[in-house]
């Protein structure tokens, strides 16, 4: 862990505080009466607002999770140096790609 990774991790954490709060409230609202794709998509489809919201959320979460898991692996696994960085970039990329794909899936 160094200052650059630290700043990114804490900044994305701070950014996600309101995003998660909104997400939790949305979940609590949506789960009432059972989940239905119709209901979810009616909310998100064609919505620039939700698109930006979830897009930003995905980007922040990808960076935050990649750095976070890297720290855990650095301390709890035998991985060191290069392998940690490679893991971080790959995991972050996977989350970003899958996440943005999901945003497109529910907004388009």
């Amino acid at each position: 862990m160094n200052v650059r990774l630290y700043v990114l991790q804490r900044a994305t954490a701070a950014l996600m505080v309101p995003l998660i709060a909104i997400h939790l409230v949305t979940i609590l609202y949506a789960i009432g009466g059972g989940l239905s794709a119709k209901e979810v998509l009616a909310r998100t489809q064609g919505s620039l607002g939700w698109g930006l919201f979830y897009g930003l959320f995905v980007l922040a979460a990808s960076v935050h999770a990649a750095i976070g898991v890297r720290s855990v692996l650095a301390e709890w696994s035998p991985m060191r140096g290069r392998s940690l960085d490679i893991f971080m970039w790959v995991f972050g990329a996977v989350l970003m790609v899958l996440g943005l794909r999901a945003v497109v899936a529910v907004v388009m």
Partner: protein
Amino acid sequence: MQKTLEVSIWRGGSEGRYEVFSVPKRDNQTVLDIVTWIQRNADPTLSYRFACRVGVCGSCAMTVNGKPRWTCRTHVSKVIGDGKLEIAPLANLPVVKDLTTDMSRFFEKWQEAKGHFVPSKTRADPIEQISPESTERRAANEAIECINCGVCFAACDSVRWNDDYFGPAALNRAWTLVNDVRDAGNKERLKAVAAKGGCHNCHSHQSCEQLCPQALNPTASIAGLKRRTMQAYIRGEL
């Protein structure tokens, strides 16, 4: 019939075993009293460190029932719990023999964290006027009473998990120097604590703060270093 305590003492190096001794139980007894009695009356080959016996030097720190403590300031009655007393050397350090550890690593990290004063003036210059009420001096004073006993270092999970990590004591001292307006070494010091083994490895478990016998708060000091290094990073100074 005199009452006795069954005490387990670590014998050997980093690998070894616990040896059980029967020690006379007294009404007022510290863990250091126990260790001393064993070495003087039961087994003169027991190795341990102590100096002042009164809680000002930090030499007698050991692991008592799993926690790092000053043995001279630990009353047996306070820790005996279910009648068991287990004494081992401080954790996170190589064991020399029995209850003594090699503290070189602890002090080397002190140096790596630049935990030493760098003068900015000569004896020809006037004395720096520092108000004890200034924000920086108050911050330094809150953290300055460290006597390098190693309890925080032994308690720290990040030290245990990460060989590079400087540890709470070294970073706590670096924080006092960051707040010392006479010090000229802060550019290098911030670089040092922002690098690989530095303050960003701290996960605020607060074991150091909970266990420091001087009631210091390395967690808070390290948080201060995190703020300073973040500001320096954003300003492009790192």
